[in-house]
């Protein structure tokens, strides 16, 4: 059984039905730990050592967040800036994240369709997520395909609970399967 850490960043979680649904689906699972960053660090003063120690014991890491202006909320960026230190996460001696699995689980108002060359956002989800992919790559991690909950503006309750169930199943399979068979990107 793998241990899974969800780094969750939402500045206004109490107003996000979509993220509440996702979190509720996984929050009671064994070996799944959720770190609610906006609750832990409301003033952005991140405790770097505590974060690094927390990362240590988990094999799978999920960046869960809403998609704001084609990226994550600022506190998650702050987390990346501060926690992924040279000599710890990457560079000489930076081996502590090596071979851990990581991916983005994110919600967006717009549906998947508008994230394409023809759509109004002009680029695909994967293209927008390149900075995360490269961050994982530099840290020698295994970057898995993203989990995307799109079209939250118009989503029905049934659709939402289906999506939440899907998220839960993904998490469970990452936790329990002998081999992770999903494709991933990692430095050779």
């Amino acid at each position: 059984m793998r241990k899974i850490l969800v780094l969750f960043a939402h500045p206004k979680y109490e107003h996000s039905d979509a993220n509440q649904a996702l979190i509720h689906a996984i929050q009671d699972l064994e070996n799944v730990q959720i770190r609610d960053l906006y609750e832990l660090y409301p003033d952005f003063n991140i405790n770097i050592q505590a974060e690094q120690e927390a990362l240590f014991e988990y094999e799978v890491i999920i960046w869960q967040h809403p998609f704001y202006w084609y990226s994550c909320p600022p506190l998650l960026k702050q987390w990346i800036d501060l926690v992924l230190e040279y000599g710890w996460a990457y560079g000489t001696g930076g081996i502590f994240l090596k071979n851990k699995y990581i991916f983005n689980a994110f919600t967006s108002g717009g549906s998947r369709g508008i994230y394409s060359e023809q759509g109004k956002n002009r680029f695909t989800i994967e293209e927008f997520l390149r900075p995360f992919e490269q961050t994982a790559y530099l840290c020698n991690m295994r970057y898995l395909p993203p989990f995307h909950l799109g079209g939250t503006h118009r989503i029905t309750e049934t659709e939402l609970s289906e999506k939440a169930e899907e998220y839960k199943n993904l998490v469970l399979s990452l936790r329990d399967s002998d081999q992770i068979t999903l494709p991933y990107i990692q430095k050779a």
Partner: protein
Amino acid sequence: MDGFLFNAIIYILAAIVCVPIAKRLGMGAVLGYLIAGILVGPYGFEFIQDETQGQDIMHSTEFGVVMMLFLIGLELEPKNLWKMRDLILKVGLSQVLVTSGLIFGLGIVIGVDWRISLTAGLSMALSSTAIVLQSLKEKNQMNSPSGKMSFGVLLLQDIAVIPILAILPLLAVAGTVTSEAGHGGFLENQPGWIQTLMIFGAIGLVVLLGRFGFGPLLNWVSKTKLRELFTASALLIVVGIAYLMEMVGLSPALGTFLAGVILANSPYKHALESDLDPFKGLLLGLFFMAVGATINFNLIFSDAVSILSLTLGIILIKALVLGVIGKIKKLNLGENLSFSFGLAQVSEFSFVTYAFALQLGILATTTSDLLMAVTALSMTFTPVFSLVLDKLVVPILEKKSTKPKRESDEISEKNKVILVGFSHFGSTLGRFLRANGIEATVLDYNPDQVDLLRKMGFKVYFGDATRLDLLHSAGAEEAKILISAINSTETNKKLVELCQEHFPKLEIMIRAKNRYEAFELMEMGVENIYREHLDTSIRMGQEALQKLGFRAHTVLRLAAQFRKYDEDSLKILVKYRSNQAEYISKIRKQIEIQETLLSGELSRKFSMNDHVWDSDQLKDQND
């Protein structure tokens, strides 16, 4: 024309007339006092009948020098004095030895008796502590390279007084000396080893008292909260030490200087400074006037050429020796000139040696009078010289030198922040500043508190911050910020008034007890007001909301908004305060707004003006 009051009026009047004029003309206060002295003296308006009377005044006001050295000692911490040891020994000793040697040699060459030459050489090697230090302080040059060297030289000269007084009796023709003529106090008749022992004992006593005696005394006295008692104690310390030093034949100035250095770390440093400073100033002023009054113009005019050339010769020799030393010590030309000519006068101490030598029969009365005239003249000339130097020579030199100007010499001891009040509030603030490398000059008015905090390693000074002189000595002129962490409305208001009037550049940050005090401070034009309960109460509220399930980041933003709202409303309300009726209705309106805001904040709408991260509007649009 007798009577104490009348005399006092004459002196003070002369000073009040002459000193401001001298200052206006850029001559410095010392020269002003000297001129005032000449004017009231026997060759001016004859308020002082003869030179002897002038000398009497001089002797009694010499105490100003003693006080000045005590005050200078207060400014100088022991470790800084220790750093100066090289300067004092090398520069000071070489100056005294070379100068007295040269004058002695010159005397022999022109055929003066060797005993007289030696006496004159030793006396004239010394420079006037009073004039030099006063001028340096006036020109704010105590910390410049030349100022520091001057100070080092003067310190050694003060030490040199001891061996000089010891040597003089040996010069006297055997048999003509009677022991009563001695200057060394009651120890004169004791064998040498007892004298030495007593001298070390006295110095030890001063050190011990400084370390362990004066602190408790001042603490005890300050608890009475009677200011004059504190001043009296300060005087007692200085007078007591001076007396002790005279008893064992040491220079009182040196003794009080030592005591000052020891007390430099004491919490009462600034209070002592501000209490003694006026005494020092008055006594020194009188002293300089007395010097002016003792100049025997009859004698000078009777043999003007030789006396003038003698005076100028002495000044030149002294300046030359000092100049060479300054050159070796790599002073630049401007600094070196002010160093060498600044110290080129003969010391007031030589009046003592001449009188002593006269008693010992080394000098004849005419010689002694001549030397005294030279001394007084040299004291008058040097301020003139330095005036010429400062106004004419140095500007030219500075223009010529292509080198960039020296950086300021060393970090001065004054801090950028003055923190008034070191109670729970102030100490937290002070600790926070200190944790981030900012040392504040702390003033507090509770002696026990001060002692306790001193023991814990804080630099806290005892004193009432609403006293202008204390603020001055705490460095309010150079400081950037004054923080008041006291909770008395009255004191705060007084402090604000003082600062606004005397230190307009000083930024003031004031702790306010409540809304009403904040109003008063706002009306006085204070911009940085900190209500002591505002932040804590909001923070408590924040955590209460969190315990009720509010999100931490949301609460943080709500709190920031609430605080801004509260501060803003204060600024509006203060405008209506004078009109009571309008004020009340305004308050009502504010409460209404506050209520709407609060209910808005409580609803799911987060707050009336805050739509960040809301996607409600987006939802209506096309994807």
